[in-house]
């Protein structure tokens, strides 16, 4: 049972890790959330609640856990960063900007987005879920998901454009 579970779910580890990491800043909390996701999934697995789509199932468990964690953490001031770190200088073209912006800058900019936008972007852009699948996982209507993703992407592009401009000036 253990081997079967790991064989089915370990390919989802990058997905679960990326989701937890985009939603929560504290690296220890990320590890805890990933482990908790697997523990909960294993409990369900041993109760013979096998999902048809393992990826969506793991993402749903992880997202629910991170949401609970964020609710608790909000009372302990686990808030988004107020600055964008990393990166050097450059123009606004995405390819050039990407080369020069460190991944830390992109991560920091992602944290500037609302929780809903981050979740939708992480599921669709980082993990390749469709809008329909993302709607299922987040429990939001599909048009709302599309709107969150689009607004989040625009904000992300604007934040990093600003970051590049500020770096250029300094």
């Amino acid at each position, binding site marked *: 049972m253990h081997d079967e579970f790991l064989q089915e779910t370990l390919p989802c580890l990058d997905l679960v890790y990326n989701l937890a990491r985009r939603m929560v800043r504290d690296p220890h909390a990320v590890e805890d959330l990933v482990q908790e996701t697997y523990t909960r999934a294993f409990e369900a697995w041993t109760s013979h609640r096998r999902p048809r789509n393992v990826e*969506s199932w793991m993402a749903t468990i992880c997202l629910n856990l991170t949401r609970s964690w964020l609710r608790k953490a909000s009372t302990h001031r686990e808030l988004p960063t107020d600055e964008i770190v990393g990166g050097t200088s450059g123009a606004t073209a*995405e390819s050039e900007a990407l080369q020069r912006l460190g991944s830390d800058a992109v991560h920091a*900019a992602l944290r500037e987005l609302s929780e809903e936008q981050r979740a939708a972007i992480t599921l669709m852009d980082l993990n390749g879920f469709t809008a329909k699948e993302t709607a299922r996982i987040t429990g939001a209507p599909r048009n709302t998901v599309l709107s969150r993703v689009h607004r989040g992407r625009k904000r992300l592009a604007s934040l990093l454009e600003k970051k590049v401009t500020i770096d250029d000036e300094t």
Partner: protein
Amino acid sequence: MTKHDPERNASLFLGGMMSGRARRRFEQHIIGCENCWREVELGRRGRTLAESSRELAPQELREMIRSTVAATPLPGRGPISRKRLGVLAASTAVAFVLAFVVLQPPQPQEIEVLLADYDGSEQLHRGARATLPPILGDLKLEEVRRGRVEEMSVVVHEYSDPAGHVVTVYQSDSRFPDARGAEHSASMATWSVRLNGTVMFCADEPVPSLVIGDDEREVRLATAELELR
């Protein structure tokens, strides 16, 4: 594209939610519309940036997960004595033989494909004309698709409620096969089943229909509104 709303249109375009015709019209439109062009460009740029931040999970975490799962006991299992181990081995062998003898066949291929379609890995194409009402109670029609599943021609109407529950109605000109585990009504004209939290309801009249959803109340609502029996 019925209304000039650059943000909405760009999100539908980038989300791949436009039919072929609407997509071609929008591609023509953005060439001359600065606002729509900028919306699409910003959206694309943001998507590229987001995609660039994808990471691999650290190897230590992978190992940690393996160890954690391996150390998690199966429910109701304590330490096992040698005597119990022998009994257990014998009963496992008997159970294995019994399971093999009464092993149920998998779901019919049509049901598997429709469940995969409902789950989001769309098997059927968008862009068909709606033949069912746009509103069923609090369910709103989101999309219509059409396609073939094995030998069946299927039209799909996908609804969602304000809470995000999705109910999908599959209709065909021939009967849907029975899902494994289905419970039939007394008249044998309808059946229903719950599979891993997904509810399915099938009826032959007035049109062979299969309703799939994750919320039983909404599935019942759609079934009643469509007067399936």
